[in-house]
């Protein structure tokens, strides 16, 4: 039977404010345990929360960026459960009146654009961290993270495969990074995904029973987790069983997921409006003010790249996705004066190197100006494209700037016609038989045969002969 996968995501995005959502404690990453946990964060009796205006501003920026409605009246609720990393015994969150309602994120699926609808996004506080290493049979609790502002983004079940889920996650990551509302450091937990997965026979309208896998913090984990879970569900159903609605936990070390709790024992959170916090009202003036603060978003940037630089839709999509790659591309183009070559080098050599070394563009050992200069030297004929790869290697190893490397390694292209003619003459003298064949050959065979002589000349010049000039001289001399 053909099966269809149905996926909905819940994404927790930590907002990069200075302070917590309800207290003036710093949220800087990496502080000593519990040094950023105030009386409010620790839920000491008598303390009261005061909401952070910046958290609201950033949530509204997100809402505007995905074309959503902004909740004019935003209400906080208490979600009650007991866990040691939640000192109050409830999480302050939003339920019926969230800050962001609706909206959509468009993803690229092959050649087509697909729209993933957002159900809503709400503001809430993060919990602390439990460390389960053995402290004499006890767990250690660090409450620095408790109260960090989050937006939880909930999609409609519009996603149909692991690939689409990853494309959506990457797009969202690029969006919140471009907006400057999240630092995007996934390894530090700045963005975490809960994945709701079900399967149904192809063509069926009714949704199958779903499972939820929580707290995936990398694209790769998400992809593997979805593939495994889809396979597991299909197997269970095809063996005549049925899927239990449950919460599963993915282990990134073993790449396996196991059931955490089933719906029967699921928590009953007993939500109710938080009496400590009044509703927050947001008016149109405020929304318009925030709209003015929005930076250029990936979708607009993509359109501009196509228009301004004449890039293909595919190239524009790749380069405009993140602010870092967009800046790199634009700076390299400004230096080199050639958008197409800059794009090719960035998506070719640079990207291959980054993948091989598993680092991000912001960690690359070369900068945009250096890449631009390298391209400039290809364009002005100082080096050939082939030699440029050698220069690129040296740049990557940190051997200095482009001109310095070309000079030090003697890589300058030979464009001097006297020098080139000398090489050509030598090659012609040493290959009398081939020359005769060439001259006797039909015109349509000649271009291919010329390749032999070009190769010989290149070899003789250690790859440094200017290919266009070389071709010209060879043709003349062989005529």
């Amino acid at each position, binding site marked *: 039977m053909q099966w269809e996968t149905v996926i909905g995501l819940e994404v927790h995005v930590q907002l990069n404010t200075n302070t917590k959502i309800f207290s003036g*404690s710093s949220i800087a990453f990496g502080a*000593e345990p519990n040094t950023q946990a105030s*009386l409010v964060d620790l839920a000491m009796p008598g303390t009261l929360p005061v909401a952070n205006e910046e*958290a609201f501003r950033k949530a509204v920026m997100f809402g505007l960026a995905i074309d959503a409605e902004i909740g004019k009246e935003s*209400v906080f609720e208490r979600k009650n459960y007991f866990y040691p990393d939640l000192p109050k015994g409830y999480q302050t969150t939003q339920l019926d009146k969230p800050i962001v309602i609706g909206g959509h994120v468009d993803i690229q699926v092959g050649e087509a654009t697909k729209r993933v609808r957002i159900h809503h996004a709400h503001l809430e506080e993060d919990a602390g961290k439990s460390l389960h290493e053995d402290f004499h049979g006890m*767990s250690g*609790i660090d409450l620095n993270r408790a109260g960090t502002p989050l937006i939880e983004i909930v999609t409609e079940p519009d996603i149909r495969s692991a690939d689409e889920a990853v494309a959506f996650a990457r797009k969202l990551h690029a969006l919140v990074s471009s907006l400057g509302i999240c630092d995007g450091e996934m390894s530090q937990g700045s963005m975490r995904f809960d994945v709701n997965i079900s399967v149904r026979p192809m063509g069926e309208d009714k949704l199958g029973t779903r499972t939820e896998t929580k707290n995936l913090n990398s694209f790769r984990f998400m992809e593997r987790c979805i593939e495994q879970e889809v396979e597991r569900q299909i197997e269970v159903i095809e063996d005549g069983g049925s899927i239990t609605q449950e919460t599963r936990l993915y282990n990134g070390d073993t790449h396996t997921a196991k059931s*955490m709790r089933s719906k029967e024992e699921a928590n009953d959170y007993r939500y109710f409006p938080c009496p400590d916090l009044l*509703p927050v009202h947001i008016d149109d003036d405020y929304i318009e003010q925030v709209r003015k603060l929005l930076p250029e978003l990936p979708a607009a940037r993509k359109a501009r790249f196509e228009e301004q630089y004449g890039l293909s839709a595919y190239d524009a999509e790749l380069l405009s996705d993140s602010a870092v790659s967009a800046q790199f591309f634009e700076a390299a183009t400004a230096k080199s004066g050639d958008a197409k070559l800059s794009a090719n080098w960035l998506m070719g050599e640079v990207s291959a190197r980054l993948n091989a070394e598993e680092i991000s563009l912001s960690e690359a050992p070369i900068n945009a100006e250096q890449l631009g200069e390298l391209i400039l030297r290809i364009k002005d004929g100082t080096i050939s494209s082939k030699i440029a790869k050698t220069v690129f290697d040296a740049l990557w190893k940190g051997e200095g700037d482009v001109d310095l490397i070309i000079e030090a390694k003697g890589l300058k292209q030979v464009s001097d016609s006297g020098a080139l003619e000398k090489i050509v003459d030598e090659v012609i003298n040493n290959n009398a038989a081939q020359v005769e064949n060439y001259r006797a050959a039909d015109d349509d065979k000649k271009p291919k045969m010329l390749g032999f002589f070009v190769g010989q000349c290149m070899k003789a010049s250690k790859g440094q002969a200017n290919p266009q000039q070389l071709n010209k001289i060879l043709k003349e001399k062989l005529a």
Partner: protein
Amino acid sequence: MNPSEIQKIAHLARVHISDDVAEETAKSITEVLGLVDQLQAADTDGVAPMAHPLDAVQRLRADVVTETNVREKMQSIAPATEEGLYLVPKVID
């Protein structure tokens, strides 16, 4: 409301209630719910639901760090700490 429902709610709130008390509590809460039923009979068409009894809106705080490190003070009243962490009975979900 029956005593077993009361015990379920008590468990969710991590409150211990003896069977006798559960019986009594079930009765009182049933009475309260009766009152709620009576309230629900009121015609509220056209009345906006109220999120808070005060007719006021939340003032927001500037995003400036105002809190200092109070770990030493707070941990001096904690039952168990180690390496700056609060220690609690082992919990794994």
